[in-house]
């Protein structure tokens, strides 16, 4: 195509008006101010207790780790661009949508792919899962065709060795069982969105096929590259979920990559002690960890695994009534007020935050 000034125009996106990956970030903001760093850290998987708490309050926890390689300057540049476009206003470390921004957010939510499996981002790293599955499927496919001369997907010696050992252990008939498990998983994904198995199927590498690049897939799906990347990430997460739920060789292959809990390994240990009846102080002493770290673990557990225990037992007698009388209205508007001089300030804040979490979950 030739513009009027004679210069050739390039189409930057595959689909005009399509969704760039970072456009999706607008969905994470709202008309109420939200903390910018919370959103940035959530995307990058830098998960402090405060990030996890505010992500819950904002209702955006499913976006966890969806942009692990995000650079600060790119995020800042994007914010500036949104401000200039009149979609977002920044104020004192927070940002909120303008009416135009809200219209755009609604349009994104209505017209573009919306992830179904985002919450599994707490337990699955889809990049690592995808690499291991792709190599596992490749070696199985070449094996099925009796082909020994091919370039295995280079995912690093450690991971390649894991796949090799898996193939040796799985042994004869692997092609049939992997085929059946893939079929079953793809049928299930198809019921969620027919594009999910189409996308994953297109990416597979094996005998006489190298799979499609993201750009090639985007053109086939008639989506922008950004929207395709969101869909592909969701599809791998969905695949991971299905493999945890069904037995089969691929489940064995990826089992070590899927965490049983959204909590970190250290927080899981804290919770195990807590469930045995130990107090935060006792856990701190036993594990040689700071008391503040143990408290953070408990708060994260209250947010991410609320049903495993009754967290109310952490409050001293009478304190719940007192907190209920003092703090009312939306939890995000509460300001901490120290009123117990006999209590360590950190402990008082811990109980305040725990109360916030529990009330937030009740209102949900």
């Amino acid at each position: 195509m030739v513009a009027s000034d004679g210069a050739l125009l390039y189409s930057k996106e595959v689909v005009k008006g399509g969704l760039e990956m970072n456009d999706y970030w607008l969905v994470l903001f709202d008309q109420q101010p939200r903390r910018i760093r919370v959103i940035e850290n959530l995307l990058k998987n830098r998960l402090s207790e405060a990030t996890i708490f505010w992500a819950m309050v904002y209702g955006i926890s499913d976006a966890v780790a969806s942009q692990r390689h995000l650079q600060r300057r790119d995020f800042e540049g994007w914010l500036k661009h949104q401000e200039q476009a009149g979609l977002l206003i920044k104020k004192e470390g927070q940002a909120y949508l303008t009416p135009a921004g809200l219209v755009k957010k609604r349009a994104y939510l209505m017209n573009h792919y919306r992830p179904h499996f985002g919450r599994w981002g707490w337990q699955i790293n889809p990049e690592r899962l995808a690499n291991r599955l792709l190599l596992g499927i490749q070696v199985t496919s070449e094996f099925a065709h009796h082909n020994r001369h091919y370039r295995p997907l280079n995912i690093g010696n450690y991971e390649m060795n894991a796949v090799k050992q898996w193939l040796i252990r799985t042994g004869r008939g692997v092609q049939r069982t992997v085929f059946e498990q893939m079929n079953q998983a793809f049928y299930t994904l198809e019921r969620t969105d027919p594009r999910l198995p189409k996308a994953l199927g297109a990416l597979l590498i094996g005998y006489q096929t190298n799979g499609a690049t993201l750009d090639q897939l985007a053109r086939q799906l008639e989506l922008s590259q950004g929207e395709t990347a969101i869909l592909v990430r969701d599809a791998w997460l969905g695949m991971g979920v299905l493999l945890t739920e069904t037995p089969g060789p691929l489940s064995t292959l990826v089992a070590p990559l899927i965490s049983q809990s959204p909590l970190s390994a250290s927080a899981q240990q804290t919770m195990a002690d807590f469930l045995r009846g130990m107090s935060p102080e006792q856990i701190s002493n036993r594990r040689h960890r700071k008391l503040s770290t143990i408290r953070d673990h408990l708060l994260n557990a209250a947010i991410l695994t609320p049903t495993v225990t009754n967290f109310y037992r952490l409050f001293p007698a009478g304190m719940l009534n007192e907190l209920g009388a003092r703090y009312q209205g939306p939890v995000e508007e509460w300001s901490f007020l120290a009123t117990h001089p006999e209590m360590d300030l950190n402990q008082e804040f811990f109980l305040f935050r725990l109360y916030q979490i529990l009330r937030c979950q009740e209102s949900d």
Partner: protein
Amino acid sequence: MTEQIEQIRAVMKRVFGFDDFRPGQEETLLKTMTGQPTLAVLPTGAGKTLLYQLPGVMLDGLVVIITPLISLMQDQVDRLRNVGQSRVAALNSSLDYQEQRWVLSHLSDLDFLFTSPETLIKPDVLRALHNQTISLFVIDEAHCISQWGPDFRPEYLLLNQALTTLKPQRLLMLTATATPAVQDDIINRLGLNINQVSRVVESVNRPNIFLAVQHLDNQDAKRRRLLELVTKLGTSGIVYLSSREGANQLAAWLNEQTSLRVAAYHAGVAPIDRYRIQQQFLTGTLDLVVATSAFGMGIDKSDIRYVIHFQMPVSLEAYVQEIGRAGRDSRQALAILLYCRGDEQIPLLLGKIDLPSAEILDQIKVGKTTDTILGDAAHVVSFYLTQGMSGREVVNVFAKLEEKRAGQVQRMLSYVQEDGCRRQNLLAYFGQREFLSDKFTCCDLTNPDWVVADLDLPPVQKKVSLPVLDWRSRLESLFAQPGLG
């Protein structure tokens, strides 16, 4: 000697499937195997990788190969695995901690280790390698040792110390392009005695590649010419340019404008997509790659029929490397450079470093000022400062670099503006005065009426890709299974 050659031939046939040596291979292998430090300057397509792959199979101990690019390293690892050599690993900064530990603790299980100079000189890596028998130490793309400019990798200067520490049994330096002066520089910088290094130098001339330059009035005309050319030339080509974003845009545009299957390739493309693009191109399901210089080193596709430079490369060395990817099957191929007046500004600007004053550099040296003000040049400048140079000395070094780089661009421009014979111009730079050529297939200056059709470029079979979105048929064909219904 004859017996050794017979042994080498037997392994070459059995493991790699080759019957004969290409020019320079036999001489290099013999010298290397007998322990003479050897510098081999062999043109692209001469089969340099075999020169360490083969000793790696024949010798006891580890072959360590120093390679400048991670993508090249991965490619070499893949190629060895492709011929059934699984005792191979790459060690570089792209690996996570777990992967790096795994490689270092499995060195004795390996025949080949690919690494970068930056990784090699790390104390724990040197320590681990010191405990191994290194049968052969290879410096691939050895011209990097003598390279100047912002792409210069200062750690190459520390390779001589690494050699002293590791004491490998054999040493081989490989490059496709090195003028006699660059050859001397490589040897000196590695701390070797210039008289004790054997040199195997083959001509960089590739008589089967027709050389042409086309002058266009403006960028718009250049793009239109590119479109005409790729439409006419069809499958199995590479278009080079200097920026990642430019490669993305041009690839998207060519996908829209032609029926060719085109992909952009550069260091910003995700590693898995780089793998796919390389493999699709190798197997003929991708027609054209629009790439930065990141694409090509190690791409062993024999039937690439044309290379088009959409922008001027930084030097004749780079140009020869890049066009050398065409016609490795020795059949007719084509290299065209599209030039607009002022294009030489791009390589000049790309390599430009704005250094602060000598006084500020001295402050950085003693920690009074942060080196972040140096921007992209921080790594190179800091290296010189930590090696004991003063701010003034660093400024002088960079002034010389700038001069040298400008000279290289100027020399590239002289090729573009040549009016006699392009091949002669190019070979003279590499010290070769005489060569045989056919005026008809030499260049656009010896055959001014040339048209693409007259070159008789051998047709390349276009392969059909499997349907992308039909997941059922893809699964059936991947696993050789009938459908489940």
